[in-house]
């Protein structure tokens, strides 16, 4: 039991990088980027292939980051320069990456079991593993926070918040969009590279459903920890990723559920998280409207009362 929780925390930390990537596109840029499913596997594929060819795991992970940057840049360019709808641009890249990833690996999957990876020296004991991952993820989070407070980072955030305004202040929003999507997929690919190193293999299907998991992490994190500032929001995303993994680990221990139900459960989490606020808002607005109408109805009555 405890073992599976520890394992879930470690996995949650690795997937947190992916969730941070999803946070950049969905929340900061307000761009629903579906490239993620492809770029996650791209990261795994590049890292696994480079490791089997004898490159240092550091270099392999860096390679995965660069691959993710490139994939994201393509989606960004399709959307900004090619004027393709954002969702479609992401889907097109995702599909293309599926073939590209198999090309990178030369076959549908590559094993790196028993090879030296970034994670193999620290994999045991689990406490140390979690600690090192935690420090690494927090460093990435802090770097991202810092970036989002630079002049360029502010322009990136404004691109998602009010693109008309930031253009009138002299930012090329096409450029900031491409930078944001690119950075996002870079993080996603690193996450994929680490998952491949942790699991001992890369597979062309390892990214399927990743976008929904990323979204679920973002939404769970925001629901529990809030998103008042960027610094809080990124922390919430990391925590959300961990909580998600723990929930899944616990759900799997319930006899009713099978591993293949995971994707459905994840989708359900996201659906609930998306629907509940909308319903609540509609309900609130309706009751407010009712209250105001009643108030307004009461006013002329009072006027008459005053005059008579």
């Amino acid at each position, binding site marked *: 039991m405890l073992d599976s929780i520890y394992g879930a925390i470690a996995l949650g930390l690795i997937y947190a990088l992916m969730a941070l990537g999803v946070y950049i596109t969905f929340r900061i840029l307000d761009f629903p980027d579906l490239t993620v499913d492809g770029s996650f596997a791209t990261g795994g594929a590049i890292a696994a292939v480079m490791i089997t060819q004898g490159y240092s795991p550091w270099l392999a992970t860096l390679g995965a980051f660069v691959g993710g940057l490139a994939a994201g840049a393509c989606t960004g360019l399709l959307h900004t320069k090619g004027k393709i709808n954002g969702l479609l641009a992401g889907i097109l890249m995702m599909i293309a990456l599926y073939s590209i990833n198999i090309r990178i690996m030369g076959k549908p999957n590559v094993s790196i079991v028993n090879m030296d990876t970034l994670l193999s020296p620290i994999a045991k004991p689990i406490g140390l593993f979690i600690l090192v991952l935690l420090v690494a993820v927090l460093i990435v989070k802090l770097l991202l926070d810092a*970036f989002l*407070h*630079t*002049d*360029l*980072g*502010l*322009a990136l*955030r*404004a691109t998602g*918040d*009010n693109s*008309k*305004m*930031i*253009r*009138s*202040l*002299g*930012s*090329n*929003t096409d450029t900031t969009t491409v930078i944001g999507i690119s950075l996002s997929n870079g993080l996603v690919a690193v996450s994929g590279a680490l998952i491949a190193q942790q699991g001992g293999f890369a597979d062309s299907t390892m990214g399927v459903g990743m976008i929904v998991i990323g979204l679920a992490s973002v939404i769970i994190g925001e629901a529990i920890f809030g998103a008042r500032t960027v610094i809080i929001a990124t922390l919430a995303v990391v925590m959300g990723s961990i909580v998600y993994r723990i929930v899944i680990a616990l759900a799997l221990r319930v006899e009713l559920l099978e591993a293949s139900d995971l994707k459905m459960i994840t989708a359900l989490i996201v659906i609930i998280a998306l629907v509940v606020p909308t319903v609540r808002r509609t309900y609130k607005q309706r009751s407010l409207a009712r209250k105001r109408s009643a108030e307004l109805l009461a006013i002329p009555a009072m006027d008459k009362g005053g005059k008579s």
Partner: protein
Amino acid sequence: MLELKNVSKLFNPGTPDEKVALMNANLTCNSGEFITVIGSNGAGKSTLMNIISGVMKPDIGEVRIEGNAIQQLPEYERSRWIGRVFQDPMAGTAPRMSIEENLAMAYKRGQKRGFSLGVTSAKRMLFHEQLQRLGIGLENRLSAKVGLLSGGERQALSLLMATFTKPQILLLDEHTAALDPARAELITRLTEEIVREMKLTTLMVTHNMEQAIRLGNRLIMMDKGKIILDIPHDRKKNLTVSQLLGEFQQISGQQLADDRIVLG
């Protein structure tokens, strides 16, 4: 100096929906002039602003700033010279970012944005000082999200953001129209002060005839994509609203049709 030469702009050309927004419009604004712009609905006032700022490109014609033709430059490259405030108070600020972050973005107007920190303590002091001049207490709420501000407060902030790097040209498109009278008055007063102090070349679209006469030192009137009347300062001083409406009727052959008109 800002010049428009033979500028035309059509929407939906060649379709039954074709709209003439600007037709062979010519305008020369000298440095430091504060020009108020009036005209009927659909006269092309907003299109004029959008063509100057680069939101749209003219079909034909030239836009020049200090003699350089800029009509092919994208909006983000022109912003170096041009500050804008829009009618919609939501349009000029980023709601999910703080007041100081919004100001930091305006501070970098037209400059390259790199990896240096957006809000520094030195800038914070400058922002504090600038916000104080607005006189509505925003200087004490530097880290508040702009989305929490009222329409009037947001518009005051937009005005500051549009002007505090001292752009050569300030474009105001009905920037008080969405506000209640008291707030509109505040923004008008701030506009007047800022434009006077910084000597900004300003174009201000308004539906308030009294304001159009009282503010600024030149008045132009637009109709059907053309500038049909251009009243210099000395004649504007003694103009009345009814004279102005009379002149419009005489030139265009119809009454000024403006659903938001305020006579003053």
